[in-house]
């Protein structure tokens, strides 16, 4: 597994309090998480010497009209907490601070934000597939989207041109790069720039390829033409369908990671139109850090600080608002270090899907898939799934579904992202989209060797999990997508607190740890055993031996292609013995019997044995698949 550089103001590792905050003396902490659709606020306080979650509130995020002020949604959510606790926390549009002797007010306020959307970064120049992948990897832990637009000269010299269907000759034979084709490519790129309205550009590539320095020059020319066009549209109003911040006269930030000898030439070409920040030339993973840092700086400056109401929000706290993904990263890394285990965290949000993997040896692979989610991001998710065939979505549903129905579902969710499912059918469709959001996120990180990462603990957060009516629905969703192998524990963050705790840790590590243990990860769903190797349908996959603390014993045979839940309640432990079939592996090799070194913990569901095989394969026959899915749902009580 590759590792991800990690840094950031207010986003450092747990245990690094921000200067000027007397966290040790904080009796109460108010933490707000401003998502794309909802804003969650939690009040943390000292109860018998331990930090606990006192109350939480939720309200729609108010970045867009009619409020256009992020603090309005936060205030509404705080009002819910005031109603619950009877404490007065806001006054005259400000958080009361410090905490008063009568209990009103709070000592510290911190905020995490994902509401502003991602920073859109166009990758220009001699963008080879390898450089495109590196650029993606460089920003994979940030709310950032990259779009590669290789320079026409680079495309002409380095990439095979696909022949039209029915054309004679070999399909990958290069076609002459005519002036018409070059003009068409230019217009296509300009159109793409108009469509994308990028926040910034990243120029990459050396000048030693067949295109020479032309690719860098064309990248600059594209930026010059785009910027002139954008600036011509200065003063367009929202009523005309264009947001002001996208068209105002500006200098487009350019991160230059191309051939070092052309830095000054690029600066000259872009003079007056773009601000050029040179970083180390991007050639390998060793240069990802500076690009990550530069992009994050731009994200904070050009996205977060432009969120309506940011200035007021900033005045409520001495610490900077933190990107929610960074906050969650911080906590996940802490968990992996603190408990010496591999941790995977999954957060399916309205507009972003995040999968974070932190290893006990310090490895860290964050994958933030901006723009793909189950709220406003469901449109992008649908379109991506559509490209691969809508069967990708339908395969998760135990009933027939038409494209029209899925399309209707998507449009309704895009227009009303706050809506919750009223019928079981809608709920299942929502969960199918969540599965694909996670799958696409994992696929987007092809550079990360995910298969080698074996999580000891899976933590799920986000409203799709937190609002799942049955815990087992959340478990099945995770097993279907992450497809862990061996023995894994699953914890559900029902309170949606963990993504806030990384930010809390920057001002009060003790509070973050205590609230995490006392309130956030309290919904332990159970331990999962997932045999792998050659699991044959309807043949014994694994024999489970359990020895409970009260002396009871149980032996359960689990057949291949099935999933089974064995009772092991929340505060119960048992010794576990696994006897796999001859071709099946439980961690020690095919057919090798294993005994857990420590007693395993129960949970709200129990001990879950997923003997469906890895990789999970669904029947291709529709009727058979519906039957199988229904059986699995029934088996876990979902």
């Amino acid at each position: 597994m590759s590792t991800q550089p990690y840094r950031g103001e207010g986003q450092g590792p747990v245990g690094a309090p921000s200067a000027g905050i007397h966290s040790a003396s904080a009796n109460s902490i108010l933490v707000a998480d401003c998502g794309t659709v909802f804003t969650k606020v939690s009040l943390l306080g000292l109860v018998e010497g331990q930090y606990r979650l006192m109350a939480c509130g939720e309200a729609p995020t108010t970045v867009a009209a009619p409020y256009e002020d992020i603090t309005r949604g936060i205030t509404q959510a705080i009002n819910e907490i005031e109603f619950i606790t009877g404490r007065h926390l806001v006054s005259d549009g400000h958080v009361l601070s410090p905490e008063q002797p009568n209990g009103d007010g709070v000592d510290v306020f911190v905020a995490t934000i994902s509401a502003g959307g991602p920073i859109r970064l166009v990758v220009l120049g001699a963008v080879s597939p390898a450089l495109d992948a590196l650029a993606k990897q460089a920003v994979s832990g940030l709310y950032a989207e990259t779009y590669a637009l290789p320079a026409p000269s680079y495309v002409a010299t380095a990439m095979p041109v696909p022949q039209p269907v029915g054309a004679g000759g070999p399909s990958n034979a290069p076609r002459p790069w005519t002036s018409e084709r070059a003009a068409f490519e230019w217009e296509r790129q300009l159109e793409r720039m108009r469509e994308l309205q990028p926040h910034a550009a990243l120029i990459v590539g050396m000048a030693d390829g067949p295109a020479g320095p032309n690719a860098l020059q064309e990248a600059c020319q594209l930026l010059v033409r785009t910027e002139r066009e954008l600036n011509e549209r200065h003063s367009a109003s929202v009523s005309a369908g264009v947001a002001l911040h996208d068209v105002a006269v500006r200098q487009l930030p350019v991160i230059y990671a191309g051939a070092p000898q052309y830095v000054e030439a690029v600066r000259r070409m872009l003079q007056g139109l773009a601000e050029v920040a040179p970083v180390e030339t991007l050639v390998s993973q060793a240069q990802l850090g500076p690009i990550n840092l530069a992009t994050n700086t731009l994200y904070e400056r050009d996205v977060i600080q432009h969120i309506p109401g940011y200035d007021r929000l900033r005045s409520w706290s001495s610490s900077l608002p933190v990107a929610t993904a960074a906050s969650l990263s911080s906590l996940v890394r802490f968990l992996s270090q603190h408990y010496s285990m591999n941790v995977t965290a999954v957060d399916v949000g309205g507009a972003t899907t995040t999968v974070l993997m932190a290893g006990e040896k310090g490895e860290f692979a964050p994958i933030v898939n901006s723009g793909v989610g189950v709220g406003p991001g469901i449109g992008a998710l649908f379109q991506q799934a559509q490209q691969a065939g809508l069967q990708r979505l339908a395969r998760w549903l135990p009933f027939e579904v038409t494209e029209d129905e899925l399309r209707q579902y998507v449009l309704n969710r895009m227009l009303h992202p706050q809506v919750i499912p009223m019928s079981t059918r809608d709920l299942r469709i929502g969960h199918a989209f969540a599965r694909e959001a996670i799958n696409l996120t994992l696929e987007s990180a092809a550079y990360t060797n995910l298969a080698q990462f074996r999580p000891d603990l899976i933590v799920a957060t986000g409203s799709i999990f937190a609002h799942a009516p049955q815990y087992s629905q959340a478990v099945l969703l995770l097993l279907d997508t992450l497809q862990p192998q061996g023995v894994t524990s699953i914890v559900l963050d029902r309170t949606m607190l963990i993504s806030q705790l990384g930010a809390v840790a920057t001002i009060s590590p003790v509070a973050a740890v205590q609230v995490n243990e006392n309130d956030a990860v309290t919904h332990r769903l159970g331990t999962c055993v997932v045999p792998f190797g050659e699991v044959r349908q309807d043949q014994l996959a694994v024999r489970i031996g359990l020895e409970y603390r009260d002396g009871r014993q149980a032996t359960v045979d689990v057949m291949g292609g099935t999933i089974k839940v064995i009772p092991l309640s929340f505060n119960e432990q048992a010794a576990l013995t696994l006897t796999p079939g001859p071709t099946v592996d439980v961690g020690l090799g095919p057919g090798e019997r294993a005994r857990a070194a420590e007693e395993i913990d129960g949970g709200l569901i129990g001990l879950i044995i997923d003997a469906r095989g890895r990789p999970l394969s669904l029947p291709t026959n529709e009727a058979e698949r519906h039957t199988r899915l229904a059986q699995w749902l029934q088996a876990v009580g979902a």
Partner: protein
Amino acid sequence: MTYPFGWSVVTQTLVRRERWPGGLKAKGIPLVYPGQEVQPDQPVIRIERAGLAEEKVSAARSSLSASPASVAAMDNGTGNSSNGVRSGETILAGLCGRVVDITRRGGVVIESRAAVVQGAIGAGGQVAGVLTVWQASGGTRGQQSIPPGAILVIPGPLNLAMLRQVMSSGISGVIASSISSRDLEGFLRTDLVQLVGSRNVELAQAHLPPVTLLLTEGLGTLAMPARTMRLLGQYQGSIALLSGATSVHQAIFPELVISLPIKEAQEHWHPVHPDPVLAVGAQVRVCGGEYEGAIGEINHLFTHKQVFTSGIRARAARLRLEDGSTLVIPMALMERVG
């Protein structure tokens, strides 16, 4: 929250709108100056260079079977700017009010005291036209006098056949309650998911047919609420400004802006400040589930979360509908409309 104004119908409010024909490359010459009072039927911009729409419009016109009168009227500049603009044409203010700014590209920003109807979804650029309510009892549209370039109000759901009829009649915009997604996609010849999810709204609108649409309730076969219909009927014959642009990323939703008559704006000016908060007494619309489109008043907010058919537990309220019946609905499914 779907409605940028807070509610779907706002009877009196102060708006500022840029009058602009649309198109990324368009360029206009303002015919008015900041501080000048303008009337809805007053030309305010002469188009110097049309945008992306021109080629498309030319193609569309060649395929239209519109009467010569209606095409002439469009060419003379009735304000069908976004979808019918060509170099040299003038476009109308569409609003009554004061010019407060001229934008760099030549757009005219007008401040007006107006009524606003916001739609759930729409398509097409900004157009001005005479608000005309379709009289179902009057038989075919041919028997009803519909001014060229009118904005036609159809109280019920639309379908593809009606839209095709509209295309051939010189109408610049249509306001209706709802339409099936299949019919709307069939008419627009575009992927609705892509259109609604588009970031560059002008670019997305540039490739649509030259009729602007606003659906008050959205997709499906939902009826138009009586109060929306009442307001539209009240302003029958007035010139109004219609925009169909919809973008969830830019929080842009379709809207109809109707300047208040001078007397009403001066003597009975009581601007409404919509409060989107869901509280007892609030009029709300159900925006999902089997009761989608139902309108009622909140008469009780439950302290504890309620369980619904899907098994989900959620904060909820009891609604009293106009027919006196009651429903318990999750608050996440409610939009305040009054």
